[in-house]
Structures are given as C-alpha cells and as structure tokens.
C-alpha cells in the first residue's frame, strides 16, 4: 500500500480532508451559498436602512419595491431586514444548540465508552429511553416546559439532539479503545483524561464536524418547526419559523406571498447549503477516502 516517500512532505489528516472537501463540487457550492448568506446576515445592520422591528402601519403588506426589497409584513416591518434578522436568530439558535448538544453528546458517549460497564449500561439505557420517544413529541413536551424564547429553544433542541451523537461517539470510542495505538497509550500508563482528549477527541473530530454541520441544518429546521407550532421563538422577534407561521393564514399565503416566500426560501437554501457542506465533510472525512 502507501509507500509514499518520506522525502516529500505531505499534509496532515485534517489538511487532506480539507483538500478532498475542495474537490467536492456540491460542497463547494454549499459554501458558495452559505458564506454570502452569513455575510449578509451579519452585516446588514451596517448598510440596510430598516430595523427588523420598525413598524410602519402606513406601509403594511406592501409588495417588494426598491425601498423594501422583500416587501413589508402585516405591521409594515421590512421583510428583508426580518429575513436577515431571522437568519441571525436561527443561526444563533442552531449554533448554540449544536455546540451544547455536541458537548453533552461527546461527554456522554465518551463516558459510557470509557468509564466502565456500569456507566455504560446506565447511560445507554437512558439514551434508549430518550430515543424511544419520537423527537417531535419530546420536543412538544420539552418546549411547553421550557417556554419560548431563544435560550429555551436552544435548550430544547440540544436536549433532544445529543443522544444520537452520544451513540456515535460511544461506538467510535469503543472501537478506538481496542485500537492498537490506544492500547499503546494505555500501556504507557495513560488515564481516562489522556485517552479522552489526546485520542478520543482527535479521532472523533470527523464525527463531530459532520454532526455539527448536519445538526446545524437540523436545528434550523427544528427551530422553524417549533416556532411554527408557536413553541420556539416568540414574535415579534423574527425567526424564519415564526415568519413562516404567518403563512398559516390563507390571506398571507395567497395575497402576500413575499411574506413567507422569502423566509421560506432563505430557510430551505440555508439548510440545503449546510447539508451540502455536511455531506462534503462526511465524504472528506470518510476513512476509506484515505486509501486513495
């Protein structure tokens, strides 16, 4: 197999994954969509004339114009500003919940894999239990406990999402635990902390990265779904989900399509782009790709 000559310097595993990622056209397209969106979302207050919560009862339900690119909503707020603000909130929720669930999931999975049979049995039964309940139902119940708003939504989404990661991490670490290089570290006296952070974490980085991207996409969808059911981000704060909630009204659905078309498109586009990126990352990190 690979008998590459040691004379030629070749990049580390992450750099190689990154190279492979760049070869994936869909993934690059995903970046091409996501990056400008991110820029717009982050920078709009600097250059856009309207604030997301500025109401103008005289300019209610106006269609797209040169002044209001995406038109205005039922109280005359600028839809463009709200779509971007909604993006901010959606992303904030998604990133925060993903981070939180990634931490919980990783630690849970790692502990159950490395901290002995009892910890494993108990924590996995717990994961089973959480997973027995269909996610949306759990979400409904959790959301009605936690209430609405950004942080409760973050909490709800993270609490819901970690078990999957915990399982993936656990099985990766169980496998890793038997790998020779980990055995070697144990043979040199490594404790659980060393194993976890020097071996577990770097060797789960692919899982984490892929999980994180796909989970961000997922969290955006969950947030939208929750807000749609009135359990996520409460109006008047903008979120893609609660903007779409407006389309429940036939009047809005039919007569003011810009009020839901734009957030809807933004939502689908963002999720799609992130999914593309996630897919690209998954392929890039695929251990089999290393063989080529």
């Amino acid at each position: 197999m690979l008998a590459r000559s040691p004379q030629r310097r070749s990049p580390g595993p992450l750099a190689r994954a990154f190279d492979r990622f760049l070869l994936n056209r869909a993934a690059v397209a995903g970046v091409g969509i996501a990056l400008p969106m991110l820029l717009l979302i982050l920078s709009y207050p600097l250059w856009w004339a309207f604030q997301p919560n500025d109401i103008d009862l005289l300019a209610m339900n106006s269609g797209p114009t040169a002044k209001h690119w995406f038109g205005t909503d039922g109280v005359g707020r600028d839809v463009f500003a709200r779509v971007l603000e909604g993006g901010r909130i959606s992303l904030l929720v998604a990133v925060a919940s993903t981070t939180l669930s990634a931490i919980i999931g990783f630690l849970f999975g790692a502990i159950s894999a490395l901290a002995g049979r009892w910890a494993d049995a108990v924590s996995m039964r717990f994961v089973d239990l959480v997973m027995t309940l269909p996610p949306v139902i759990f979400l409904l119940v959790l959301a009605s406990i936690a209430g609405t708003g950004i942080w409760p939504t973050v909490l709800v989404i993270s609490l819901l999402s970690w078990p999957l990661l915990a399982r993936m991490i656990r099985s990766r670490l169980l496998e890793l635990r038997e790998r020779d290089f980990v055995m070697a570290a144990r043979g040199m006296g490594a404790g659980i902390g060393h194993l976890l952070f020097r071996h577990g974490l770097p060797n789960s980085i692919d899982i984490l990265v892929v999980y994180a991207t796909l989970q961000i996409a997922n969290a955006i969808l969950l947030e939208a779904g929750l807000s749609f059911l009135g359990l996520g981000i409460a109006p008047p704060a903008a979120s893609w989900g609660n903007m779409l909630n407006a389309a429940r009204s036939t009047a809005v659905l039919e007569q003011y399509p810009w009020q839901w078309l734009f957030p809807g498109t933004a939502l689908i586009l963002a999720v799609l782009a992130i999914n593309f990126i996630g897919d690209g990352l998954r392929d890039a990190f695929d251990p089999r790709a290393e063989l080529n």
Partner: protein
Amino acid sequence: MSAPLLSVRDLSKHYTSRGTRLNILQGISFDIGKGEVVGLVGESGSGKTTIGRSVLRLVEPSSGSVRFDGTELTTLSASALRRQRPRMQYIFQDPFASLSPRMTIGEILTEGLKIQGIGCVGDRLDRALSALAQVDLPAEAINRYAHEFSGGQRQRIGIARALTLSPEFIVADEPVSALDVSIQAQVINLLRDLQQRLGLTMLFISHDLAVVEYICDRVIVLYLGRTMEIAPSADLYARPQHPYTRALLSAIPSPDPDARRDRQILKGDIPSPANPPSGCVFRTRCPSALEACAGAVPQLREVAPGHFKACIRDDLD
C-alpha cells in the same frame, strides 16, 4: 539462573460471549529470565496476543499470577501500575493500526514521556530523537504523520515508541508478520540488535517458527490456549517432542527446492474455545492420539533439561 524477571503462574483468561464461556487461556505458566528472549508460537486464535496483553495487564487476566521483578502485577492498583508501566512495553503487529493517524511522529514518540511526566518538552524531544536514531530513521521524521511512512518504517516507529520509556521488558506481538520478506529481515535484525545492545528481556510472539528460531532463546508452543511444549530453541527445533510442534514444523513450506516433500498434514480445524475437546485439546487433530488422551488434561513434564511437554506419550519417534 537468577530470579526470573517475569514469572507467570497459572494464568487463565475467559470471555463470556452471548452466554457461552470461551476459555481462551488455561493454566499458562512460564518464566522469563533477565535478558532472555522467549518465543511464543501457535496458530491464529491460540491466545498468543491474550497472553502478551495479560502479562502487561492490558487485558485483565481472569485468574493466575504475573510477577514482574518481584511485584505482583495482577493485584496492583491503577496508580501503582502506572508507575510500573515504563518498565514494560508492547510492540504491535499491525504497523498501520498501531500509530495514531492524527498525531505526528514527534507526538507519538513523546506521548509516553508526557503521560509519565518525564522531562520537559525539550528533554522529551531529545529522547524521541534518540529513539528515532536507534531505529535508523532520520530525525526529520519527527514532524511527519504516520501515513507518510511505509510499513517497515512504521514498524520501526512503533519500536522507537516502545524504547522511549527505556523499558526492561518488551512484549513484541508478531512485529514482523505484516511485513514483506525483504523488510521483515531488516526489522528482525534491528530487533535483535536492540535486544542485545540494550540487554532487553523480550516475549516475542509469532506464528512463524522460522522467525522465532532466529531471535529467541526459548520457545513456548501454544495450542488453543494451552501450553504444549516449552524448550530452549536449539533443543526444540532439533528434537521437537510434542506431536503438535512436529506438525507445525513440518507444515512450514521450505523455499529449498530440494527439501523433502513428505510433509505431515494435520487433519481438520482448530476446535472452538467454546467447546474444547476433553483431555488433551490437540487430540482431535493429533496423528498419535490414544483413547487415554481424552481423559485427563496432560500436565507439562520435563523430558529433557529445560524441555517440557504436555503429552502423555513418550513412545513417539
């Protein structure tokens, strides 16, 4: 001989898989003297790796005792065990699996020092470099990743890693099996050099009797987790006593085109450890098996000075 460095007594290991008990090792006893190289041979699944790892407590033995330089390892606390760790190291079979793909060679080589808290960053690097030099690899390897090296080079890195902690005792688990012949010879020579230069004590695991003969002072022959024969190399190869050892020796294909071709071929397969045969575990494939072999488990007996076998028959040859 003075007191042995390693003394294994009645070592047993079993796994429980889906409710059935697998007896992987039973009643393994042997000693290794200081500076001695003992070979452990047997077919796949005979428990060689399990012995090697149990001895270092990388797997927990089910019962039995392992004394290392007078210290009982099996009952040692985690922290006490950690302090013993640098004295005994392991070399792995698979040069691809045994090096972390996410660490540079430098990180791999200093990992043990770091775990043990030995030296400062600079010292560790120095020791890593000297280990690299010992295995004939260039110093610039230190910043590369394992995937940039060939199998033979990786195996050298694996050996270097074991050396960084200056161990007295090394378990080498089939260190050359995964390598091509031409590379295999390089690594064998290296290991032998190092062993002699550093006065290492070694448990050398292999399924290749030819390799074992070349590097070991004494050989233990294993079959289905039981010791069949233990003897000094010269004696074993010249006068194998156990039918299994003989069969094993005869099964090795010789590259000499003029060699005898009337090999003795064992029938059938190795039984499963889930239901091993009664009595002598080898009897189902043994060309010389008697009815009595099904009875008691044969004990190791000394048939010549330092030469032990676990076979009830003395009338062979």
